[in-house]
């Protein structure tokens, strides 16, 4: 029954509509045994939907699914599992208070709990060792880092017997180093005979780690190509339909400091001191980048500066004179600070509220849409409509639509539209392009540049060195909660990179 071409999984002419909206239009992809297959495409291209069809979550309206050349129907996630297909979703499906073993057991409860647990623990340990996963399987999953939770998800599908592994944007939530480790693991799996589908936005991942690449656009398959020898700009053209190329555009005029940070100390939620004695300043008209390997205090710095957490020591000054060290988020904003946090879904948007409300909350707080007694709805919606237009937020069918429905890039554009509406003096942006497709991240970068050119100071905290090198006028490298080195343009990639790891 084996397909001579070695095709493990083929999805053929898959069409899927949601309440009349055609998300997949005769899409197709075929994955060989022992290959890593990249699936590329902008947000909303239909990558997750197509993979959900293979994983048994969506029933296609039409089309065929073939495993080893034989047509099958997949009746649900459990059925996909018996067919050897396992998927790790963009949003993890784990029970937080349970440990790894219990979570894995949940996906296939055996006959007797006690016996199952023992057998499973041994099996999970074995697979984890094979993959070189460092993981405490006895700790509640909720206390693990994102990378560790992802390992639990991967173990879950592998222990479940999957030979075809689908990873939906697995590196979007990881730091560069964690991502590279994951991709090494993926290669090792393919060597052992697994087939892996890797959904990603990062072209270099597709080119460096994958065998073949399938590109999707607007619910259709554009083409499948060999990864060897293809260039980034070829791929970009396939993905977007045009070449998007970002270029450096240094600042023309740099002014007085808008943010001065001296001896800042801040802790993580669990009390661990993550920012210790950070010293730097951001001037008006410049983008100051904080580079560094993830987990060196970036999130805590961003939270402390935006007022989400209290700083323990140090002095933070805004606009040269205003001491905001102990100010609340409200007061900071009144003084001209805007923030674009990395975790936009939990810290910058309320997914169940409307696009209009998410845009307007900043204005409402500044008293722009009426008094305490009355919010002028009509005016608010009009302003939201104009902002959606001006910031090119796409996929807004109605201003009353829930913000959670926006794709990553459009959600981020909405956040930026709100944050920039108060003409801020200082913008604190943490990984603003994380998880965004090419075009959306270029748009976000353009916004940051134009805010800078209008005279704002921009603090860009990013674990993506390419992004830092592309955008910044000055760079500080953060390691273990301290700025250990600073660089002026033009930058030497090598020496910045060395500073990031050298002091570790």
């Amino acid at each position, binding site marked *: 029954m084996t397909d001579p071409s070695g095709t493990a999984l083929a999805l053929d002419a898959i069409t899927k509509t949601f309440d009349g909206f055609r998300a997949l239009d005769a899409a197709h992809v075929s994955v060989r045994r022992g290959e890593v297959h990249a699936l590329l495409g902008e947000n909303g291209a239909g990558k997750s939907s197509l993979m959900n069809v293979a994983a048994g*979550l969506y029933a296609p309206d039409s089309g065929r699914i073939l495993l080893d050349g034989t047509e099958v129907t997949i009746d649900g996630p459990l059925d996909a599992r018996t067919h050897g297909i396992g998927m790790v979703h963009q949003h993890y499906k784990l029970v937080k208070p349970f440990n790894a073993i219990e979570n894995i057991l949940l996906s296939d409860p055996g006959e007797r709990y006690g016996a199952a647990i023992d057998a499973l623990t041994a099996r999970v340990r074995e697979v984890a060792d094979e993959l070189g996963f460092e993981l405490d399987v006895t700790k509640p999953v909720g206390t693990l880092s994102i990378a560790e939770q992802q390992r639990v998800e991967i173990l879950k599908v592998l222990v479940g017997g999957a030979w075809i592994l689908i990873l939906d944007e697995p590196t979007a939530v990881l730091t560069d180093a964690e991502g590279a480790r994951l991709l090494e693991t993926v290669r090792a799996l393919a060597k052992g005979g697994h087939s892996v589908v890797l959904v990603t936005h990062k072209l270099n991942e597709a080119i460096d780690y994958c065998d073949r690449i399938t590109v999707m656009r607007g619910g259709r398959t554009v083409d499948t190509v060999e990864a060897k020898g293809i260039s980034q700009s070829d791929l970009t053209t396939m993905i977007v339909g045009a070449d998007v190329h970002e270029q450096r555009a240094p600042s023309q005029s740099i002014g007085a400091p808008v943010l001065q940070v001296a001896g800042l100390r801040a802790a993580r939620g669990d009390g661990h001191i993550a920012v210790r004695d950070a010293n730097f300043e951001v001037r008006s008209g410049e983008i100051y980048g904080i580079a560094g390997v993830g987990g060196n205090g970036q999130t805590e710095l961003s939270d402390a500066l935006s007022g*989400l957490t209290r700083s323990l020591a140090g002095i933070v000054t805004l606009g040269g004179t205003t001491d905001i060290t102990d100010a*609340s*988020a*409200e007061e*900071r*904003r009144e003084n001209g600070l805007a923030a674009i946090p990395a975790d936009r879904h*939990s810290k910058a948007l309320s997914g169940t509220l409307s696009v209009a409300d998410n845009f307007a*909350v900043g204005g409402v707080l500044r008293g722009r849409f009426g008094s305490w007694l*009355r919010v002028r709805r009509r005016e608010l919606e009009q302003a939201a409509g104009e902002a959606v237009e001006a910031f090119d937020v796409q996929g807004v069918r109605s201003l009353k639509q829930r913000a959670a429905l926006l794709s990553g890039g459009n959600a981020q554009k909405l956040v930026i539209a709100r944050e920039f509406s108060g003409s801020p003096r200082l913008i604190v942006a943490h990984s603003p392009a994380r998880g965004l497709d090419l075009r959306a991240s270029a748009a976000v970068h353009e916004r940051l540049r134009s805010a800078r050119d209008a005279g704002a100071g921009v603090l860009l905290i990013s674990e993506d060195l390419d992004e830092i090198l592309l955008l910044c006028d000055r760079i500080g490298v953060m390691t273990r909660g301290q700025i250990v080195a600073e660089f002026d343009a033009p930058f030497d990639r090598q020496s910045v990179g060395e500073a990031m790891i050298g002091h570790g």
Partner: protein
Amino acid sequence: MADETAGMAGPPKAHGLHRFRPRLEMRQTTSGLRTAAMIAAGLAVGLGLSALILVASGVRPGDLVNEFIVQIFASPKNISAVLVQAAPMIIVGLSASIAFKARFWNIGIEGQMIFGAIGATLVATFDIGPEGLRLPLMALAAALGGIAWIALPAVLKLRLGVNEIISTLLLNYVALNFLLHLLYGPWQDPVSAFPHSEQFEETERLAALGWQSLNASLIVALALTVLVTVALTASRVGYLLNFVHTNATMARAVGVPVVLLTLAAALGSGALSGLAGFTISAGIEYRMTQSFFIGYGFSGILIAFLARNNPIGATIVALFVAVLMVAGQSLQVFYQIPFAMVQLIQAIIVICVAASDFFIRHRVQWLTG
């Protein structure tokens, strides 16, 4: 595996169950119409199940229609009984809605009602203030009593992170024992020597409206509905509370004064509960009794839940609950159906409406083959 698909061509094999398979998909969007239809369907199923249970326990189907529809809606006396019953229900429903909107889980509605009634009774018994202002003063004292009883849990939660579910719940018992202390002690009715306060004078009662037993407590309730609706849907406070409700971290990050708003919502909830105590004492019983508050805490939570914290919705649901109560009373009297059955029916309806949420969030498809 392979022959399962091969089976499609020939006659179905042993697994006939496989021919019609349900398949669930998460929905990303749901129209308002579908939401309303699903909730209505949930309600209909709940009512149907309740009817079956009542029939099974000996009520004839014809009588059921008679008790619930004909008797209630054809008799002015019963209509007014429902409306009188509804007034405090509406107010506790509003109280729960406003607290839940800020994710302050106020389980202490009954304790706050008790302190509301104590405040009102204090003004009434000691004839505080001029007669003309007596009722407004009683209302004010009731609101303050309710606020006083929720202030401690609110501050404990916002300052020290003490779980308000526990603190408001336990304070109910403290309030109840303090009430009993008053009614068996200093405030015992000197006339009858029963454990309730002395009767309120004419000027201390919510006026009758001149139609059946209806009195001004309904007007108070409707006025509060308007007030809370404006506060929650038109004002900046309500607008910002939506953010506190749906994502408090984000709210804090964009500068919403989360602590202040939560405090305001909690105190508002306490004030409303206190006023509910006032409408019962000054509008129905004309004194403070030892059991006037029983069941309102649960009803308030239930009303807010079914109404999804919407004040107008809460008013409608409260009316519905009042119908159930009044019909339940006659079922008790004429069919010896225990009161627990009324509570069971309430619970069934809640479960059915809650379950309708599943069909709002998911798309169920039937696959053949």
